[in-house]
């Protein structure tokens, strides 16, 4: 464990080092390590640490890990890596690749135990005092996880000098953990406990519960130990409570995120089904077309404008809207307009259409999944506190869904097209006699619903496989959302999607993902019995037809 963390630190340092020019000071100081005399070596080590060069920690890591060698020929300090025909060596200071040599050409720089302790100390200090706060944070976290006793002093020193509050908090936590584990006096441990119980981190929990178990196993404990054990238990309960709280928050977040996905998939359906009363079973395929449009836009960017590749996802949003929207208009004009007033036939015809579209996409793009890469600005996580991290792409989907909903509401409420659409929905013949081209409004409405489905496809391409079956996976869910929320009401769709998403995520820990989904389906089936028109039902005569 410690090794891997150190490797990470080393790798980070390495990254940093490639940007900075190799310092001559460091190279000079490192020459001292070639000496046979251990006191010379110690001096050299200290000079290296004091050089302030970003690569110095990397060098010391290599020395400590026994991966620092001197070449016999040029007396250069190198690190080596085993390859098939010998050892690949790199200059430790400049990171210059020096080719492949045999093991006999290298002599290892040896260290003794005294040096080992010193180097460990130095490496820890170096990273804890690094200029980059992110690296300091990492170092503090790794100390917290590995808890080496000899880091207590350097860590307290670093904490005293720390200016960044978040890094300081991490260091305080790490120091508390160190004091708690290695503390000599009960007072020091108790003090550390006070800090630890304020944390909300699974690591702290496991640390505390391990200690609690150890204390509980002591036969005939003295009163002091009993009292301490009670305090550990209390601290553990406190941490548990915080973790449970975080768990609930995380569940809500996950639920809202799933709900947003459902909302995106269902909101187009809420227009075509809710507003027009058309059952569009090919709705899922509109989502799929949107996802494939994203893929095509990405590939176009890759081939013609590689610089813009990171923004291809943004360009894909209008593209997907237009492509899926045009498909929708074409479908409405060629098929659906002949089937108005026959919802069951519409259902069958659009199902047939969905089969054709799937097979069409399969013929063009092949049956395998297509890779739509996540741009860099969407990867990574936002860590709110210890133990609660939200991924950026989930946050982006939530925001995107909210934006789409808002835009749609705006279109429906504030534009003349929205007005005409609502007029046609409420009374087609009256609207027609007022001079509204109902056929045109139908086509545009269907196009709008399909276009929104296409935009959902852009978002889904980030979290799901882009395959011809993409839409199929969402069609039943989308219908559930629309039916649950109530037809003809976008707010109903929002409430439906979010409540289904959150319920699903809260059920999952107890039942597993599949059973949770089954429970939701059964719940909706029962719910529809109670309120056949959904949560937010339209009232009046229009409902009967």
């Amino acid at each position, binding site marked *: 464990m410690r090794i891997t963390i150190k490797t990470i630190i080393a790798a980070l340092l390495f990254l940093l080092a490639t940007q900075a020019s190799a310092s001559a000071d460091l190279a000079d100081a490192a020459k001292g390590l070639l000496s046979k005399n251990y006191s010379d070596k110690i001096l050299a080590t200290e000079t290296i640490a004091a050089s302030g060069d970003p690569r110095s920690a990397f060098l010391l890591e290599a020395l400590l890990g026994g991966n620092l060698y001197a070449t016999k020929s040029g007396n250069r300090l190198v690190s080596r890596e085993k390859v098939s025909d010998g050892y690949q060596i790199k200059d430790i200071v400049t990171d210059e690749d020096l080719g492949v040599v045999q093991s006999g050409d290298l002599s290892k720089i040896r260290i003794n135990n005294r040096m080992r302790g010193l180097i460990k100390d130095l490496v820890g200090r170096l990273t804890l005092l690094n200029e980059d706060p992110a690296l300091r944070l990492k170092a503090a976290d790794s100390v917290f996880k590995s808890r080496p006793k000899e880091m207590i002093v350097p860590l307290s020193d670093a904490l005293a000098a720390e200016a960044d509050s978040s890094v300081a908090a991490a260091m305080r936590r790490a120091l508390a953990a160190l004091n708690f584990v290695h503390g000599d006096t009960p007072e020091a441990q108790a003090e550390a406990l006070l800090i630890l119980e304020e944390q909300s981190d699974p690591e702290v929990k496991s640390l505390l519960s391990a200690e609690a178990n150890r204390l509980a196993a002591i036969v005939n404990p003295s009163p002091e130990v009993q009292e301490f054990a009670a305090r550990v238990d209390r601290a553990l309960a406190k941490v548990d409570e915080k973790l449970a709280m975080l768990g609930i928050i995380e569940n809500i977040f996950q639920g809202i995120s799933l709900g947003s996905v459902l909302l995106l998939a269902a909101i187009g359906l809420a227009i075509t089904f809710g507003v027009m009363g058309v059952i569009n*079973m090919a709705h899922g395929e509109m989502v799929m077309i949107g996802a494939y449009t994203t893929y095509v836009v990405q590939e176009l960017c890759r081939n013609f404008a590689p610089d813009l590749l990171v923004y291809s996802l943004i360009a894909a949003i209008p593209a997907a809207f237009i492509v899926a929207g045009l498909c929708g208009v074409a479908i409405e004009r060629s098929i659906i307009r002949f089937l108005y007033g026959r919802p069951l036939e519409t259902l069958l*015809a659009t199902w047939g259409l969905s089969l054709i579209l799937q*097979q069409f996409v399969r013929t063009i793009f092949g049956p395998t999944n297509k890779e739509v890469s996540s741009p860099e600005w969407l990867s990574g996580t936002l860590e709110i506190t210890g133990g609660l991290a939200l991924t950026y792409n989930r946050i982006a989907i939530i925001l995107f869904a909210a934006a789409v909903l808002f835009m749609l509401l705006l279109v429906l409420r504030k534009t003349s097209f929205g007005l005409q659409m609502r007029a046609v929905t409420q009374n087609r013949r009256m609207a027609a006699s007022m001079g509204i081209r109902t056929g045109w409004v139908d086509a545009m409405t269907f196009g709008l619903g399909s276009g929104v489905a296409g935009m959902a496809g852009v978002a889904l391409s980030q979290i799901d496989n882009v395959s011809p079956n993409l839409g199929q996976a969402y069609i039943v869910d989308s*219908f*559930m959302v629309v*039916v649950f929320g109530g037809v003809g009401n976008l707010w109903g769709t929002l409430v439906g999607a979010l409540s289904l998403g959150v319920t699903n995520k809260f059920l999952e820990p107890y039942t597993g993902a599949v059973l949770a989904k089954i429970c939701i389906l059964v719940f909706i*089936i029962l719910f*529809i019995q109670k309120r056949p028109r959904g949560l937010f039902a339209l009232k009046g005569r229009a409902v009967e037809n």
Partner: protein
Amino acid sequence: MANTIFKTNKGPFVSLMTGLPGGGKTFLGILLVAALLVPLSNLLLPETSPFHVPTYLVSLMGKYVCFALLALSVDLIWGFAGILSLGHGAFFALGGYAMGMYLMRQIGDRGVYGNPVLPDFMVFLNWTELPWYWYGFDMFPFAMLMVLLVPGVLAFVFGWFAFRSRVTGVYLSIITQAMTYALLLAFFRNDMGFGGNNGLTDFKDLLGFDLQVTGTRLSLFVASVIALGLGYLVCCFITQSKLGRVLVAIRDAESRTRFSGYRVEYYKLFVFVVSAVLAGIAGALYVPQVGIINPSEFSPANSIEVVIWVAVGGRGTLWGAVLGAFLVNWGKSYFTGSFPEAWLYMLGGLFVFTTLFLPKGIVGTSATWIEKLKNRRRESPDIGAPLSVKEE
């Protein structure tokens, strides 16, 4: 109650036989001939004869016959009561699973693991004893009872809630789809105890007869044809009776029928349960002939496909549904074999084409044409008759 519902002018059977709808007798005749000729030609004619029906074809046709019975059950509710179920595959699969469980228990200690009680997949999952819901499936009569009861009870419970709260039209279609989807997910789970996504397979024998033997296969084919014939008669009986008239009234104007004093939900519930039981029987006959039942039978796509069989043949014509099932499935076998890429285009195109251009299906549309031809012939002598009479 039953008397008043089924009341007809003459005795029920006589009126059924004389009142069989158009093509009904011909249809039963064809079934009878098929039930006799197919086994005879398989057994008596030499394999070189062009009229010899090979055994694999017998099984294939047996499969189609089961599909036809399923289509019939969908036509009964969709064609006559206006209930479009997108989850009838669920009843079919449940019947199939009940039969599959019996067949699994019949394997006994001949399985791979040689456990006399537990089916192979349970041994594989380290189960030590049989779950309670597998009890009794070693007995054929019990299993057959379950073939009828499980789909029937599910349909009853589901329909009871759905029809009482007046869930109609597309809403009903969507929740039936949700029902079969939920069952699909449930049966995919290993800990449900139905073999997970592999389902039930490796069947050995049925009532002591080896399933691989030609004789058993022929018997299953004949049994399926008989079941189809009986199912057809039941459907005719229901649709010809007064109850059937009420159903049609419900289909065409549900609210008006309710206002006339009929308890719409009970009529619908009755026909829905009958239909589910028919679908269950079809599934039970299907499983021994194809040798496997797995959760994919529950997939919503399968259920929708059944609807298109009915739509192609002709909704509300009963034997049209059978015809549709045969045509579409034959097409499926042919195209998936010869042009696998093209089949989904064909199927999708069929959905679109049928709904747009053949709303009454093959049977309904051809009946309209024949009617027109007859009318033209009848009208041709009196061309000089005043047109104004017709206008009124």
